[in-house]
């Protein structure tokens, strides 16, 4: 079996981590800028042109500030929590192909053929820290679900009821939303036949993007991802207005808080990559990726650009949704996960399995997926009788009016 070059792997690690860290730093600026634009403001513009040096200044501030550990906290877990958050966020990106990728070859019947395809594969380019990992997505979900430990440790060690509330909410939320997250992927895996992200990209390049075949799965995955990354409208663990910052209340604005925030933004980048790769075809774009040939620098750059545009579109969506949808109430959050998303994800998975078993054409799957979504809407319509909000009955309202009119004039 061919060996992978340690030096190129090291370069890839440095490159990807530097890219992620740089993007994360500028994502914070982008978040502030988008927030300002949505609110008709200009946003940070004092540090450098258009505020472009703001992340550097912020980073410098984080490093230079005094690192206060409150006397009432559990010191070990208090220090451990940011490390856990940050390292799991970085570990998760290890299997994500950040650029053009080559799927690992299938098993061969003879050893010579095996050797040949493996040698060809070892010479092909895959821009991932760990290319060709067959349990790719499984590893990714395993590592990113560890991130909840960072949140829980932070909340528990802070010895503060708001932090604890935030972290408890967070654990319930992340555990609930991991179920539809995993189930939404199920349909994709059945068709792609692999957990490997390069393989999933390659399948979509040959057959078309999964978002067209399984739009409902994409929708469920997108929603669950918002919950997993603690972004609005599911940012209950932090909920500045209710929990004064939630689990990171007790962290002074030092590098520990910085790590926590960086971890969150790193999750955003990872999940944006996942959305682009699993459902939007990764670096493929209806043949556009082959305009500059299959190999060589122009092709690589073009594919990087295609994937980059998709990823940044999702990042922008993350930022925009924050200022569009208000936060869910906790019971709404839970009922959305357990009463809507999990049954829908299960049904969708069932539909995919049936379509695959009967070998129906792909457009049937698209139609069934949309129909399932519409059906869910109809069920919601019937079940809620047109309105879900608790309210006074019209009779009670009129009675109230009568009693008002009886009041002495």
């Amino acid at each position, binding site marked *: 079996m061919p060996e992978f070059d340690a030096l190129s792997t090291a370069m890839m690690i440095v490159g990807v981590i530097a890219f992620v860290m740089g993007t994360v730093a500028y994502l914070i600026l982008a978040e502030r800028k*988008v927030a300002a634009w949505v609110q008709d403001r200009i946003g940070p513009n004092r540090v450098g042109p258009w505020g472009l040096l703001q992340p550097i200044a912020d980073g410098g501030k984080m490093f230079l500030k005094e690192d206060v550990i409150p006397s009432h906290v559990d010191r070990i877990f208090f220090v451990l929590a940011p490390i856990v958050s940050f390292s799991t966020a970085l570990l998760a990106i290890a299997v994500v192909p950040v650029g053009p990728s080559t799927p690992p070859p299938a098993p061969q019947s003879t050893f010579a053929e095996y050797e040949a395809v493996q040698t060809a594969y070892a010479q092909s380019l895959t821009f991932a820290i760990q290319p060709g990992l067959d349990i790719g997505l499984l590893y990714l979900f395993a590592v990113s679900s560890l991130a909840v430990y960072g949140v829980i440790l932070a909340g528990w060690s802070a010895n503060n009821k708001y932090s604890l509330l935030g972290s408890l909410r967070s654990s319930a939320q992340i555990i609930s939303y991991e179920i539809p997250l995993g189930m939404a992927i199920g349909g994709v895996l059945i068709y792609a036949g692999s957990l490997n992200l390069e393989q999933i990209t390659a399948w979509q390049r040959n057959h078309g993007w999964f978002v067209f075949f399984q739009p409902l799965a994409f929708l469920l995955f997108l929603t669950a991802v918002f919950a997993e990354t603690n972004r609005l409208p599911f940012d209950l663990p932090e909920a500045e207005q209710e929990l004064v910052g939630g689990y990171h209340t007790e962290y002074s604005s030092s590098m520990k808080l910085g790590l926590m925030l960086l971890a969150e933004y790193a999750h955003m980048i990872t999940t944006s990559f996942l959305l682009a790769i699993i459902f939007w075809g990764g670096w493929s774009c209806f043949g556009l990726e082959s305009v500059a040939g299959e190999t060589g620098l122009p092709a690589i750059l073009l594919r990087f650009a295609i994937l980059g545009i998709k990823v940044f579109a999702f990042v922008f969506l993350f930022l925009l949704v924050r200022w569009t949808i208000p936060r869910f109430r906790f019971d709404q959050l839970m009922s959305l996960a357990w009463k809507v998303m999990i049954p829908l994800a299960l049904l969708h998975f069932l539909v995919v399995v049936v379509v695959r078993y009967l070998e129906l054409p792909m457009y049937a799957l698209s139609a069934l997926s949309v129909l399932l979504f519409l059906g869910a809407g109809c069920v919601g319509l019937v079940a809620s009788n047109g309105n879900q909000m608790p309210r006074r009955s019209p009779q009670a309202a009129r009675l109230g009016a009568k009693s008002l009119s009886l009041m002495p004039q």
Partner: protein
Amino acid sequence: MPLSNQDILWIEEPKLGLLEQLYIPAIADGLSTTLGHIFKKKVTEQYPEQEPKLPANYRGVHRLNRDEAGRVKCVACYMCATACPAHCIDIVAAPAPPEWKDREKYPETFVIDELRCIYCGMCEEACPVDAIELTTLYDLTGLNREEMIFDKEKLLSVFDMTTRMGTDPVRTQAGRLGPASETPPTANLPS
């Protein structure tokens, strides 16, 4: 007044249809709103470079007006000092010089403690001769407390400066009665 039935408008909440139950159209609608705001004109005023346009009746730093002859208009009647709820005006009156035929007194000193002042504008309302006014100067700063105690010369220099800059307040314009000033009380007296 108690509420009567006519004052109350009972509104039925709109029923959620299929599209609303699907959430997607509503979310798309919201996203288009936020996206639209991104391209709207920004309301930010970039302060140090871009000064705000204040209304002429803004209540900022005081000034003491001069009359046409360049003398202080104040007649040291103590009306402003009496009206002042913060007691920040300190006047020492003196007999007017004999060549000033129109008044008996003039302020020998006229000191306003800008730190005590609450910028309520009572002084300019109380003044019978429109001698004291609040200007649109808002960026009043000082390095110590003494700097913030404005004497007569400083208050007159505020008048000179605002007149030069053309940022006269509503009540008077460079010593003359302005469009917002009330007519002198003698005109309205029942004859």
